[in-house]
Protein backbone atom coordinates (compact mmCIF):
# COMPACT_ATOMS: atom_id res chain seq x y z
CA UNK A 1 0.00 0.00 0.00
CA UNK A 2 1.33 3.31 -1.08
CA UNK A 3 0.33 6.88 -0.82
CA UNK A 4 -0.34 8.50 -4.13
CA UNK A 5 0.33 12.13 -4.99
CA UNK A 6 -1.40 13.50 -8.04
CA UNK A 7 -0.84 17.13 -8.91
CA UNK A 8 -3.11 19.13 -11.17
CA UNK A 9 -1.38 21.89 -13.10
CA UNK A 10 -1.79 23.91 -16.27
CA UNK A 11 0.18 26.45 -18.17
CA UNK A 12 -2.72 28.73 -18.86
CA UNK A 13 -4.90 29.97 -16.03
CA UNK A 14 -8.64 29.44 -15.94
CA UNK A 15 -8.61 26.10 -17.74
CA UNK A 16 -10.32 24.28 -14.88
CA UNK A 17 -7.57 23.00 -12.59
CA UNK A 18 -9.56 23.45 -9.44
CA UNK A 19 -12.71 21.89 -10.91
CA UNK A 20 -10.75 18.84 -12.09
CA UNK A 21 -8.84 18.59 -8.82
CA UNK A 22 -11.94 18.91 -6.65
CA UNK A 23 -13.84 16.45 -8.86
CA UNK A 24 -11.06 13.89 -8.56
CA UNK A 25 -10.87 14.37 -4.81
CA UNK A 26 -14.62 13.85 -4.54
CA UNK A 27 -14.65 10.47 -6.27
CA UNK A 28 -11.43 9.00 -4.86
CA UNK A 29 -11.70 7.18 -1.54
CA UNK A 30 -9.32 8.37 1.17
CA UNK A 31 -8.49 11.52 -0.69
CA UNK A 32 -6.86 14.65 0.65
CA UNK A 33 -7.30 17.83 -1.36
CA UNK A 34 -4.43 20.31 -1.11
CA UNK A 35 -4.84 23.75 -2.62
CA UNK A 36 -1.35 25.05 -3.40
CA UNK A 37 -2.61 28.00 -5.45
CA UNK A 38 -1.86 30.15 -2.44
CA UNK A 39 -2.13 33.47 -4.22
CA UNK A 40 -5.80 32.90 -4.87
CA UNK A 41 -7.02 29.59 -3.43
CA UNK A 42 -10.53 28.71 -4.55
CA UNK A 43 -10.92 24.98 -3.89
CA UNK A 44 -12.94 25.79 -0.78
CA UNK A 45 -15.64 27.38 -2.94
CA UNK A 46 -16.36 24.04 -4.61
CA UNK A 47 -15.63 21.59 -1.78
CA UNK A 48 -17.07 23.75 1.01
CA UNK A 49 -14.99 22.27 3.83
CA UNK A 50 -15.53 22.92 7.49
CA UNK A 51 -12.26 24.54 8.54
CA UNK A 52 -11.12 23.39 11.97
CA UNK A 53 -7.54 24.58 12.21
CA UNK A 54 -5.70 27.66 11.08
CA UNK A 55 -1.96 28.07 11.41
CA UNK A 56 0.16 31.07 10.58
CA UNK A 57 3.26 30.65 8.48
CA UNK A 58 6.20 33.03 8.75
CA UNK A 59 9.32 33.67 6.80
CA UNK A 60 12.60 34.84 8.26
CA UNK A 61 13.78 38.36 7.58
CA UNK A 62 17.20 39.74 8.49
CA UNK A 63 17.31 42.42 11.15
CA UNK A 64 20.48 44.48 11.14
CA UNK A 65 21.84 45.83 14.40
CA UNK A 66 22.91 49.40 13.44
CA UNK A 67 25.44 49.53 16.28
CA UNK A 68 27.28 46.40 15.19
CA UNK A 69 27.01 46.98 11.43
CA UNK A 70 30.12 48.41 9.76
CA UNK A 71 28.46 48.71 6.30
CA UNK A 72 31.06 46.36 4.85
CA UNK A 73 28.61 45.29 2.17
CA UNK A 74 29.18 41.52 2.44
CA UNK A 75 25.49 40.86 2.95
CA UNK A 76 24.56 42.97 -0.09
CA UNK A 77 27.03 41.00 -2.17
CA UNK A 78 25.69 37.58 -1.18
CA UNK A 79 22.02 38.52 -1.49
CA UNK A 80 20.78 36.65 -4.55
CA UNK A 81 17.46 38.52 -4.59
CA UNK A 82 18.60 42.15 -4.40
CA UNK A 83 16.77 42.58 -1.12
CA UNK A 84 19.60 44.45 0.61
CA UNK A 85 20.73 47.89 -0.51
CA UNK A 86 23.90 49.63 0.60
CA UNK A 87 23.15 53.31 1.30
CA UNK A 88 26.80 53.92 2.34
CA UNK A 89 25.75 55.09 5.81
CA UNK A 90 23.66 51.94 6.44
CA UNK A 91 22.25 48.78 4.86
CA UNK A 92 18.54 48.77 4.17
CA UNK A 93 16.23 45.82 3.57
CA UNK A 94 13.44 45.68 1.03
CA UNK A 95 11.09 43.27 2.79
CA UNK A 96 9.13 41.96 -0.15
CA UNK A 97 12.23 41.03 -2.15
CA UNK A 98 13.62 38.82 0.61
CA UNK A 99 13.29 35.05 0.24
CA UNK A 100 14.56 34.40 3.75
CA UNK A 101 17.53 32.30 2.66
CA UNK A 102 19.72 33.48 5.56
CA UNK A 103 22.90 34.00 3.53
CA UNK A 104 23.31 37.56 4.81
CA UNK A 105 23.26 36.46 8.43
CA UNK A 106 25.64 33.60 7.71
CA UNK A 107 28.22 35.81 5.99
CA UNK A 108 28.03 38.84 8.29
CA UNK A 109 31.54 39.20 9.82
CA UNK A 110 30.24 41.36 12.68
CA UNK A 111 27.33 39.01 13.52
CA UNK A 112 25.13 42.09 13.27
CA UNK A 113 22.28 40.26 11.54
CA UNK A 114 19.64 38.26 13.36
CA UNK A 115 16.69 36.65 11.65
CA UNK A 116 13.18 37.53 12.79
CA UNK A 117 9.89 35.97 11.78
CA UNK A 118 7.38 37.77 9.63
CA UNK A 119 3.94 36.25 8.91
CA UNK A 120 3.39 35.59 5.20
CA UNK A 121 0.16 33.62 5.20
CA UNK A 122 -2.05 31.04 6.80
CA UNK A 123 -2.63 27.30 6.33
CA UNK A 124 -6.22 26.16 6.77
CA UNK A 125 -7.22 22.58 7.37
CA UNK A 126 -10.63 21.00 7.52
CA UNK A 127 -12.93 18.31 6.24
CA UNK A 128 -15.80 18.40 3.78
CA UNK A 129 -19.22 16.82 4.15
CA UNK A 130 -18.11 13.95 1.96
CA UNK A 131 -15.10 13.32 4.19
CA UNK A 132 -12.49 14.75 1.88
CA UNK A 133 -9.65 16.12 3.92
CA UNK A 134 -8.90 19.65 2.93
CA UNK A 135 -5.72 21.74 3.22
CA UNK A 136 -5.06 25.09 1.66
CA UNK A 137 -2.68 28.01 1.96
CA UNK A 138 -3.61 31.66 1.77
CA UNK A 139 -0.82 34.15 1.06
CA UNK A 140 -1.01 37.57 2.64
CA UNK A 141 -1.81 40.43 0.28
CA UNK A 142 1.34 42.16 -0.99
CA UNK A 143 3.55 39.16 -0.37
CA UNK A 144 5.42 38.22 -3.56
CA UNK A 145 7.13 34.92 -2.80
CA UNK A 146 4.54 32.12 -2.84
CA UNK A 147 7.02 29.24 -2.80
CA UNK A 148 7.81 29.25 0.95
CA UNK A 149 4.12 29.05 1.83
CA UNK A 150 3.54 26.28 -0.72
CA UNK A 151 6.43 24.41 0.86
CA UNK A 152 4.80 24.82 4.28
CA UNK A 153 1.43 23.66 2.93
CA UNK A 154 3.03 20.58 1.42
CA UNK A 155 4.72 19.78 4.72
CA UNK A 156 1.20 19.19 6.04
CA UNK A 157 0.94 16.27 3.70
CA UNK A 158 1.50 13.58 6.27
CA UNK A 159 4.47 11.38 5.61
CA UNK A 160 3.53 7.77 6.21
CA UNK A 161 1.06 6.71 8.85
CA UNK A 162 1.66 9.09 11.75
CA UNK A 163 -0.66 11.96 10.95
CA UNK A 164 -4.02 12.37 12.65
CA UNK A 165 -5.84 11.75 9.39
CA UNK A 166 -4.97 8.08 9.30
CA UNK A 167 -6.93 7.13 12.37
CA UNK A 168 -9.98 8.56 10.65
CA UNK A 169 -9.74 6.83 7.35
CA UNK A 170 -11.11 3.53 6.21
CA UNK A 171 -12.50 2.10 9.44
CA UNK A 172 -16.16 3.06 9.33
CA UNK A 173 -18.08 5.86 10.92
CA UNK A 174 -16.97 5.47 14.52
CA UNK A 175 -13.33 6.00 13.71
CA UNK A 176 -14.18 9.04 11.63
CA UNK A 177 -15.32 10.67 14.85
CA UNK A 178 -12.12 9.74 16.64
CA UNK A 179 -10.11 11.06 13.76
CA UNK A 180 -11.75 14.42 13.73
CA UNK A 181 -11.39 14.83 17.46
CA UNK A 182 -7.76 13.85 17.14
CA UNK A 183 -7.24 16.58 14.58
CA UNK A 184 -8.98 19.01 16.83
CA UNK A 185 -7.11 17.97 19.95
CA UNK A 186 -3.81 18.37 18.30
CA UNK A 187 -4.33 22.05 17.76
CA UNK A 188 -6.69 22.97 20.54
CA UNK A 189 -5.10 20.68 23.09
CA UNK A 190 -6.05 22.80 26.05
CA UNK A 191 -9.72 23.03 25.10
CA UNK A 192 -12.32 21.89 27.62
CA UNK A 193 -14.50 18.78 27.30
CA UNK A 194 -17.84 20.36 26.58
CA UNK A 195 -16.40 21.96 23.50
CA UNK A 196 -15.39 18.58 22.23
CA UNK A 197 -18.93 17.32 22.73
CA UNK A 198 -20.42 20.23 20.91
CA UNK A 199 -18.00 19.50 18.14
CA UNK A 200 -19.24 15.92 17.89
CA UNK A 201 -22.66 17.16 16.80
CA UNK A 202 -21.11 18.77 13.78
CA UNK A 203 -19.46 15.61 12.55
CA UNK A 204 -20.21 15.19 8.89
CA UNK A 205 -21.92 12.15 7.47
CA UNK A 206 -19.68 9.12 7.10
CA UNK A 207 -18.73 7.97 3.67
CA UNK A 208 -20.96 4.91 4.28
CA UNK A 209 -24.01 7.18 4.47
CA UNK A 210 -22.86 8.93 1.38
CA UNK A 211 -22.74 5.65 -0.53
CA UNK A 212 -26.30 4.83 0.42
CA UNK A 213 -27.43 7.87 -1.45
CA UNK A 214 -29.86 6.86 -4.22
CA UNK A 215 -27.92 8.65 -6.87
CA UNK A 216 -24.70 6.88 -6.03
CA UNK A 217 -26.33 3.48 -5.84
CA UNK A 218 -27.62 3.93 -9.31
CA UNK A 219 -24.17 4.69 -10.57
CA UNK A 220 -22.48 1.96 -8.60
CA UNK A 221 -24.95 -0.75 -9.57
CA UNK A 222 -24.25 0.10 -13.17
CA UNK A 223 -20.57 -0.25 -12.58
CA UNK A 224 -20.03 -3.07 -10.15
CA UNK A 225 -16.32 -3.15 -10.78
CA UNK A 226 -15.93 0.38 -9.51
CA UNK A 227 -17.62 -0.47 -6.25
CA UNK A 228 -14.65 -2.41 -4.94
CA UNK A 229 -12.29 0.46 -5.49
CA UNK A 230 -14.62 3.10 -4.19
CA UNK A 231 -15.63 1.65 -0.86
CA UNK A 232 -13.35 3.00 1.86
CA UNK A 233 -13.46 -0.33 3.75
CA UNK A 234 -11.94 -2.26 0.88
CA UNK A 235 -8.47 -3.10 2.10
CA UNK A 236 -7.63 -4.49 -1.32
CA UNK A 237 -7.30 -0.92 -2.55
CA UNK A 238 -3.97 -0.52 -4.24
CA UNK A 239 -3.22 2.86 -2.71
CA UNK A 240 -3.65 3.83 0.87
CA UNK A 241 -4.39 7.47 0.41
CA UNK A 242 -4.52 9.84 -2.51
CA UNK A 243 -3.34 13.43 -2.31
CA UNK A 244 -4.71 15.76 -4.92
CA UNK A 245 -2.45 18.80 -5.22
CA UNK A 246 -4.01 21.81 -6.91
CA UNK A 247 -1.07 23.75 -8.37
CA UNK A 248 -0.95 27.45 -9.24
CA UNK A 249 -1.15 28.29 -12.95
CA UNK A 250 1.89 29.18 -15.03
CA UNK A 251 5.36 27.65 -15.04
CA UNK A 252 7.11 29.70 -12.38
CA UNK A 253 8.75 28.75 -9.07
CA UNK A 254 5.41 28.34 -7.34
CA UNK A 255 4.15 25.83 -9.90
CA UNK A 256 7.39 23.85 -9.73
CA UNK A 257 7.24 23.84 -5.94
CA UNK A 258 3.68 22.48 -6.05
CA UNK A 259 4.20 19.67 -8.56
CA UNK A 260 7.80 18.65 -7.95
CA UNK A 261 7.49 15.50 -5.85
CA UNK A 262 4.20 14.18 -7.19
CA UNK A 263 3.81 10.72 -8.69
CA UNK A 264 1.85 12.04 -11.59
CA UNK A 265 0.78 15.39 -12.94
CA UNK A 266 -2.46 16.07 -14.76
CA UNK A 267 -2.12 19.04 -17.09
CA UNK A 268 -5.42 20.73 -17.71
CA UNK A 269 -5.75 22.69 -20.92
CA UNK A 270 -8.46 24.05 -23.16
CA UNK A 271 -9.17 24.01 -26.91
CA UNK A 272 -7.58 27.36 -27.73
CA UNK A 273 -4.23 28.49 -29.17
CA UNK A 274 -3.44 30.05 -25.78
CA UNK A 275 -4.17 26.76 -24.09
CA UNK A 276 -1.85 24.93 -26.47
CA UNK A 277 0.99 27.43 -26.18
CA UNK A 278 1.00 27.36 -22.40
CA UNK A 279 0.56 23.59 -22.34
CA UNK A 280 3.81 23.24 -24.30
CA UNK A 281 5.62 25.37 -21.70
CA UNK A 282 4.20 23.33 -18.82
CA UNK A 283 5.18 20.07 -20.54
CA UNK A 284 8.72 21.33 -20.88
CA UNK A 285 8.88 22.04 -17.15
CA UNK A 286 7.53 18.61 -16.22
CA UNK A 287 9.96 16.86 -18.54
CA UNK A 288 12.82 18.76 -16.94
CA UNK A 289 11.81 17.91 -13.38
CA UNK A 290 10.91 14.35 -14.45
CA UNK A 291 7.31 14.21 -13.33
CA UNK A 292 5.21 11.91 -15.54
CA UNK A 293 2.15 13.63 -16.93
CA UNK A 294 -0.96 13.36 -19.05
CA UNK A 295 -3.33 15.92 -20.47
CA UNK A 296 -6.99 16.66 -19.85
CA UNK A 297 -8.64 18.91 -22.41
CA UNK A 298 -11.34 20.87 -20.67
CA UNK A 299 -13.92 22.96 -22.55
CA UNK A 300 -13.17 20.65 -25.49
CA UNK A 301 -14.16 21.97 -28.89
CA UNK A 302 -14.13 19.90 -32.10
CA UNK A 303 -13.23 22.85 -34.26
CA UNK A 304 -9.77 23.33 -32.72
CA UNK A 305 -7.82 20.40 -34.10
CA UNK A 306 -4.27 21.61 -33.42
CA UNK A 307 -4.39 20.55 -29.80
CA UNK A 308 -4.97 16.87 -30.51
CA UNK A 309 -2.62 16.96 -33.45
CA UNK A 310 0.15 18.25 -31.19
CA UNK A 311 -0.56 15.68 -28.48
CA UNK A 312 -0.44 12.92 -31.04
CA UNK A 313 2.82 14.18 -32.56
CA UNK A 314 4.51 14.56 -29.20
CA UNK A 315 3.17 11.16 -28.05
CA UNK A 316 1.54 12.71 -25.00
CA UNK A 317 -1.16 10.80 -23.16
CA UNK A 318 -4.59 12.33 -23.57
CA UNK A 319 -6.45 11.30 -20.44
CA UNK A 320 -9.85 12.91 -20.84
CA UNK A 321 -11.83 15.33 -22.94
CA UNK A 322 -14.55 17.30 -21.22
CA UNK A 323 -16.83 18.89 -23.81
CA UNK A 324 -17.58 22.58 -23.69
CA UNK A 325 -21.08 22.84 -22.29
CA UNK A 326 -22.94 25.79 -20.86
CA UNK A 327 -24.61 23.66 -18.17
CA UNK A 328 -21.22 22.80 -16.64
CA UNK A 329 -20.36 26.47 -16.45
CA UNK A 330 -23.70 27.26 -14.81
CA UNK A 331 -23.19 24.58 -12.16
CA UNK A 332 -19.61 25.76 -11.56
CA UNK A 333 -20.68 29.37 -11.21
CA UNK A 334 -23.06 28.31 -8.46
CA UNK A 335 -20.19 26.62 -6.63
CA UNK A 336 -21.44 23.11 -7.39
CA UNK A 337 -19.10 20.58 -8.92
CA UNK A 338 -20.48 19.69 -12.37
CA UNK A 339 -20.09 15.98 -11.66
CA UNK A 340 -22.57 16.24 -8.79
CA UNK A 341 -25.32 17.30 -11.18
CA UNK A 342 -24.26 15.41 -14.31
CA UNK A 343 -23.58 11.70 -13.76
CA UNK A 344 -21.92 11.25 -17.14
CA UNK A 345 -18.98 13.27 -15.80
CA UNK A 346 -18.83 11.09 -12.73
CA UNK A 347 -18.03 8.02 -14.80
CA UNK A 348 -15.54 10.07 -16.79
CA UNK A 349 -13.69 10.96 -13.61
CA UNK A 350 -13.69 7.36 -12.37
CA UNK A 351 -12.13 6.43 -15.70
CA UNK A 352 -9.63 9.26 -15.35
CA UNK A 353 -8.57 8.02 -11.92
CA UNK A 354 -8.22 4.46 -13.19
CA UNK A 355 -6.15 5.69 -16.13
CA UNK A 356 -3.86 7.68 -13.85
CA UNK A 357 -3.30 4.68 -11.60
CA UNK A 358 -2.51 2.55 -14.63
CA UNK A 359 -0.08 5.20 -15.93
CA UNK A 360 1.74 5.36 -12.61
CA UNK A 361 1.93 1.57 -12.56
CA UNK A 362 3.50 1.65 -16.00
CA UNK A 363 5.90 4.38 -14.97
CA UNK A 364 7.00 2.42 -11.91
CA UNK A 365 7.43 -0.70 -14.08
CA UNK A 366 9.75 1.33 -16.30
CA UNK A 367 11.83 2.47 -13.37
CA UNK A 368 12.24 -1.08 -12.08
CA UNK A 369 13.27 -2.47 -15.43
CA UNK A 370 16.09 0.06 -15.84
Amino acid at each position, binding site marked *: MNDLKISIASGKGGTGKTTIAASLASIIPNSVYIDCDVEEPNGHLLLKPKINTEEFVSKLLPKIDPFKCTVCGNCVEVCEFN*ALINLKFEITLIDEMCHGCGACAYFCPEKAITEIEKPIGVIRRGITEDNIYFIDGLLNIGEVAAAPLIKAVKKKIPEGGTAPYNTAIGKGTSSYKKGIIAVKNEFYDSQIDNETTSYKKEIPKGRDDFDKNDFDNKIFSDNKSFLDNVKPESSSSEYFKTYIIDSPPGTSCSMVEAVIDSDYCVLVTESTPFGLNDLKLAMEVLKTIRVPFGVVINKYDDSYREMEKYLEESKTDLLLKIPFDRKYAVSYSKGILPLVLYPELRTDFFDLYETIKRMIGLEMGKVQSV
Partner: protein
Amino acid sequence: MNQEQTEEMKNTKEKIAFTSTGGSMESLLSEQFGRCQYFIIVDPETGKFDAISNLGEQMQSGAGPKAAELIHHHGANVVVTGHVGDKAEDVLKRVNIKIVTGYKGNIKVKDALTEYLSK
Protein backbone atom coordinates in the same frame (compact mmCIF):
# COMPACT_ATOMS: atom_id res chain seq x y z
CA MET B 1 15.37 65.93 5.70
CA ASN B 2 16.97 67.99 8.48
CA GLN B 3 18.62 71.38 8.07
CA GLU B 4 22.13 70.02 8.15
CA GLN B 5 21.46 67.71 5.23
CA THR B 6 19.79 70.50 3.25
CA GLU B 7 22.85 72.67 3.76
CA GLU B 8 25.07 69.82 2.70
CA MET B 9 23.07 69.37 -0.50
CA LYS B 10 23.43 73.06 -1.37
CA ASN B 11 27.15 72.95 -0.91
CA THR B 12 27.86 69.75 -2.84
CA LYS B 13 28.33 70.04 -6.56
CA GLU B 14 25.45 68.88 -8.70
CA LYS B 15 25.99 65.58 -10.43
CA ILE B 16 23.23 64.48 -12.75
CA ALA B 17 22.54 60.87 -13.69
CA PHE B 18 20.73 60.28 -16.97
CA THR B 19 19.24 56.93 -17.84
CA SER B 20 20.55 56.05 -21.29
CA THR B 21 20.35 53.41 -23.98
CA GLY B 22 24.05 53.78 -24.85
CA GLY B 23 27.38 54.85 -23.44
CA SER B 24 27.71 58.36 -24.90
CA MET B 25 26.06 61.79 -24.82
CA GLU B 26 24.76 61.08 -28.34
CA SER B 27 22.75 58.04 -27.15
CA LEU B 28 19.02 58.20 -26.71
CA LEU B 29 17.62 58.70 -23.23
CA SER B 30 16.04 55.62 -21.61
CA GLU B 31 12.60 55.95 -20.08
CA GLN B 32 13.27 53.06 -17.72
CA PHE B 33 15.15 53.66 -14.52
CA GLY B 34 15.98 50.22 -13.11
CA ARG B 35 16.43 48.46 -16.42
CA CYS B 36 18.17 51.09 -18.54
CA GLN B 37 21.37 49.96 -20.27
CA TYR B 38 23.63 52.79 -19.11
CA PHE B 39 23.76 55.64 -16.65
CA ILE B 40 25.49 58.79 -17.94
CA ILE B 41 26.60 60.78 -14.91
CA VAL B 42 27.38 64.37 -15.85
CA ASP B 43 29.14 67.14 -13.97
CA PRO B 44 27.41 70.20 -15.51
CA GLU B 45 30.17 72.63 -14.45
CA THR B 46 32.97 70.89 -16.32
CA GLY B 47 30.83 69.04 -18.86
CA LYS B 48 32.70 65.79 -18.09
CA PHE B 49 30.70 62.62 -17.94
CA ASP B 50 31.01 58.98 -16.86
CA ALA B 51 29.16 56.12 -18.55
CA ILE B 52 28.28 53.27 -16.20
CA SER B 53 26.73 50.11 -17.53
CA ASN B 54 23.73 48.98 -15.51
CA LEU B 55 23.48 45.31 -14.63
CA GLY B 56 19.81 45.77 -13.82
CA GLU B 57 18.92 44.96 -17.39
CA GLN B 58 19.47 41.25 -16.75
CA MET B 59 18.22 41.13 -13.17
CA GLN B 60 15.18 39.03 -12.50
CA SER B 61 13.86 41.29 -9.79
CA GLY B 62 14.94 44.23 -7.66
CA ALA B 63 16.61 46.14 -10.50
CA GLY B 64 15.21 49.53 -9.40
CA PRO B 65 16.63 49.69 -5.87
CA LYS B 66 19.90 48.21 -7.11
CA ALA B 67 20.18 50.94 -9.78
CA ALA B 68 19.52 53.57 -7.12
CA GLU B 69 22.35 52.07 -5.09
CA LEU B 70 24.61 52.16 -8.14
CA ILE B 71 24.16 55.85 -8.94
CA HIS B 72 24.38 56.73 -5.25
CA HIS B 73 27.77 55.03 -5.09
CA HIS B 74 28.88 57.03 -8.14
CA GLY B 75 28.01 60.24 -6.37
CA ALA B 76 24.95 61.33 -8.35
CA ASN B 77 22.49 63.60 -6.57
CA VAL B 78 19.97 64.16 -9.36
CA VAL B 79 18.43 61.53 -11.62
CA VAL B 80 16.73 62.42 -14.93
CA THR B 81 14.60 59.66 -16.43
CA GLY B 82 11.15 58.68 -17.69
CA HIS B 83 9.72 56.86 -14.73
CA VAL B 84 10.89 55.61 -11.32
CA GLY B 85 9.20 52.71 -9.51
CA ASP B 86 8.04 52.74 -5.89
CA LYS B 87 10.86 50.70 -4.37
CA ALA B 88 13.56 52.62 -6.25
CA GLU B 89 11.91 55.89 -5.26
CA ASP B 90 12.11 54.94 -1.57
CA VAL B 91 15.83 54.27 -1.84
CA LEU B 92 16.51 57.46 -3.87
CA LYS B 93 14.67 59.57 -1.31
CA ARG B 94 16.60 58.03 1.56
CA VAL B 95 19.92 58.99 -0.02
CA ASN B 96 18.67 62.47 -1.00
CA ILE B 97 18.81 62.03 -4.75
CA LYS B 98 16.49 64.44 -6.53
CA ILE B 99 14.13 62.64 -8.93
CA VAL B 100 13.22 64.31 -12.22
CA THR B 101 10.82 62.23 -14.30
CA GLY B 102 8.64 62.60 -17.38
CA TYR B 103 11.45 62.65 -19.97
CA LYS B 104 10.70 60.79 -23.19
CA GLY B 105 12.98 58.27 -24.88
CA ASN B 106 13.05 60.13 -28.22
CA ILE B 107 15.72 62.69 -27.25
CA LYS B 108 19.48 62.41 -26.89
CA VAL B 109 21.15 62.57 -23.49
CA LYS B 110 22.94 65.86 -24.38
CA ASP B 111 19.59 67.46 -25.33
CA ALA B 112 18.06 66.21 -22.10
CA LEU B 113 20.96 67.85 -20.26
CA THR B 114 20.37 71.21 -21.98
CA GLU B 115 16.67 70.91 -21.31
CA TYR B 116 17.21 70.12 -17.64
CA LEU B 117 19.73 72.93 -17.13
CA SER B 118 17.50 75.49 -18.81
CA LYS B 119 14.78 74.89 -16.21
